[in-house]
């Protein structure tokens, strides 16, 4: 499995929170390389079961979210402009003059309206999308509630660095797929339940439902976190290229964090720590309180410019994340 190729395919797909079906379909196809027991549940979550599940082994849940941030159509004006609002925490500062795709009955292109410098420093208050159609023409393609993605083509920057939209959290999906590749045909310590869950960016409902269905004994949540940019504080960030970020937080299982650190050291897998002081802000917050409580830890891939169309990730950070997942799946949580 080529990580860049997989990531490019995943990041080229739409799938704004609550509208993940097309992205889910591709993810299911990718999972078929590792098991026939996979599909989408009635809530849209992608699942895969790898192992006998006959009571011989505990179950490990590997979760990443399949949805992405974007916009949602709220209103169509008399003169044919769309008024939209963020669906998930899209960074509003990056929207002006972006080219977007409205995922309606047909996909159509639009531009986010902005005043030019010639008009002084006027600001457009609402998020206005210009599709070039009249209201009547537009209503053939677009309905209220349709999702909108911001266009940005996945590209390779200097060797091993990639920019794309939706790296949050398609990089996590790619890391889990690569981990499955690494353990393929090997005897694992667990039955493995994979979930690519929906709606993380809005409600985290997908993970709550998937975790319940998994009946997992423990879980790893694979998401992205902040890599340092020139304007951010080093103490609030990981660093791109320095490896998987192992979470430590009151809401996470410290025993799991310690075991993951131990495995990373033994396996010479580059890692860094991500210390949080409460909840993790990921699906782990939902998973850890599912059923009677599922011990959970986060593995985060450091990315730059999160929630913008030009997120940036280093492929080596996806592969170190996958390697640590694989080590854990093979060796287990220990004593």
């Amino acid at each position, binding site marked *: 499995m080529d990580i860049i190729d997989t990531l490019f395919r995943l990041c080229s797909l739409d799938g704004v929170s609550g509208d993940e079906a097309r992205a889910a379909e591709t993810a299911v196809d990718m999972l078929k390389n590792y098991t026939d027991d996979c599909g989408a549940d009635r809530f849209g979550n992608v699942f895969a079961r790898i192992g006998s599940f006959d009571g011989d082994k505990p179950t490990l849940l590997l979760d990443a979210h399949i949805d992405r941030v974007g916009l949602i159509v709220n209103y169509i004006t008399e003169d044919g402009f769309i008024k939209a609002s963020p669906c998930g925490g899209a*960074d509003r500062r990056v929207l002006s003059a972006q080219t977007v795709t409205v995922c309606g009955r047909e996909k159509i292109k639009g531009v986010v*309206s902005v005043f030019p410098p010639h008009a002084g420093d006027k600001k457009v208050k609402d998020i206005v999308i210009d599709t070039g159609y009249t209201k009547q023409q537009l209503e053939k393609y677009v309905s209220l509630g349709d999702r909108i993605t911001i266009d940005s083509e996945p590209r390779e920057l*200097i060797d091993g660095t990639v920019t794309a939209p939706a790296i949050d959290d398609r990089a996590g999906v790619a890391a889990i797929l690569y981990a499955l590749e690494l353990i393929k045909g090997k005897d694992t310590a667990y039955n493995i339940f994979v979930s690519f869950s929906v709606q993380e960016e809005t409600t985290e409902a997908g993970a709550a439902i998937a975790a319940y269905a998994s009946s997992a004994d423990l879980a790893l949540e694979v998401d992205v976190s902040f890599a340092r940019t020139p304007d951010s*504080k080093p103490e609030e960030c990981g660093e791109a*290229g320095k490896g998987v970020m192992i979470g430590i937080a009151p809401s996470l299982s410290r025993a799991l964090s310690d075991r993951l650190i131990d495995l990373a050291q033994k396996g010479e897998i580059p890692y860094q720590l991500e210390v949080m002081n409460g909840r993790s802000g990921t699906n782990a917050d939902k998973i850890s309180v599912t059923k009677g409580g599922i011990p959970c830890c986060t593995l985060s891939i450091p990315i730059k410019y999160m929630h913008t169309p030009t997120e940036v990730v280093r492929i080596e950070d996806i592969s170190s994340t996958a390697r640590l997942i694989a080590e854990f799946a093979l060796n287990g949580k220990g004593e």
Partner: protein
Amino acid sequence: MFDILKKLCLADGCSGDEGDIARLIISMLPADCEHYIDGMGNVIVNKKGAKTPKNKVMLAAHMDEVGFIATYITGEGYIRFAPVGGINAETVIGRQLHLKNGTIGVTGTKAMHQQTKEERESDVKFSQLAIDIGASGKEEAEQRVRQGDSAYFDCGYTELGDNMIKAKAIDDRIGCAIMLKLLNEQLPYDIVCAFTVQEEIGARGAKAAAYALKPDYAVVLETTTACDFAGVEDEQRICELGKGCVISYMDKGAIYPRQLYDMAVQKANTLGIAAQTKTLIAGGNDSQSIISAAGGIPTLALSVPCRYLHSPACVIKKEDALATAELARAVFEELCIL
């Protein structure tokens, strides 16, 4: 004309770096044109018509576009940069840019989750932004980028909605495309067309071209600010897509001779060409330099209304561009014998 426009918009050439776009335009000139490049880089094209006109008429459109220039490479390998021409930084954050040599980079700041409320709500400034080409340090970045290199929005040319076009640099490649269209037609009179440089940093190329050519009249072919989108009312819309060529009576750089303005409006009416004027005094173009050059040259500006000027997604409507081309020819012919 729109095939030509597409090629012109996808080419690069910000102010002071118009070499590539100039070569592309020259390659598109028909065989019966003569051209030269002046000391500033303006491309001057002469074409013989059926007759020598009473008045020498110059058409002008600028080749340059707004863009960026790399100013500094940081120790971590990020490229600091500045706008060339007027660009709102809010249209630059979260984009792919390419350097002149094709190196791709992106712009961004720390994640919104890490921003304070004030940071989230305040305008982005160029000083906060850097181009990230994925370099792991200064040395790696310096292998790809030099200080002073131009950079551009990396965005495609897309047809949009009901007969509209979206691209960078429509300002003023559409003016160039209209001149190329005219140069490909049989004309009743001799014409001189100036594809000018450095408009975006103060209409500088046109000043030299007008001085050297000393025409009796000039017509500037341009784009102009349309703010006709949802939430903008009345005169604040300035002009509107779909209502035809914009004939200006005044902008921030020039007051157009009233008799020329009236003549153009009348031509449009007589010929049934869609035309409008601006409802605010806004913008400016090469006219500001031409009108006072060489002892004074009566000048007219005909513009294609354009949304989101100086952004990666300028939007025009095809009918407006065609109306502008048609009116430009009619006005040229009239000025030749005025």
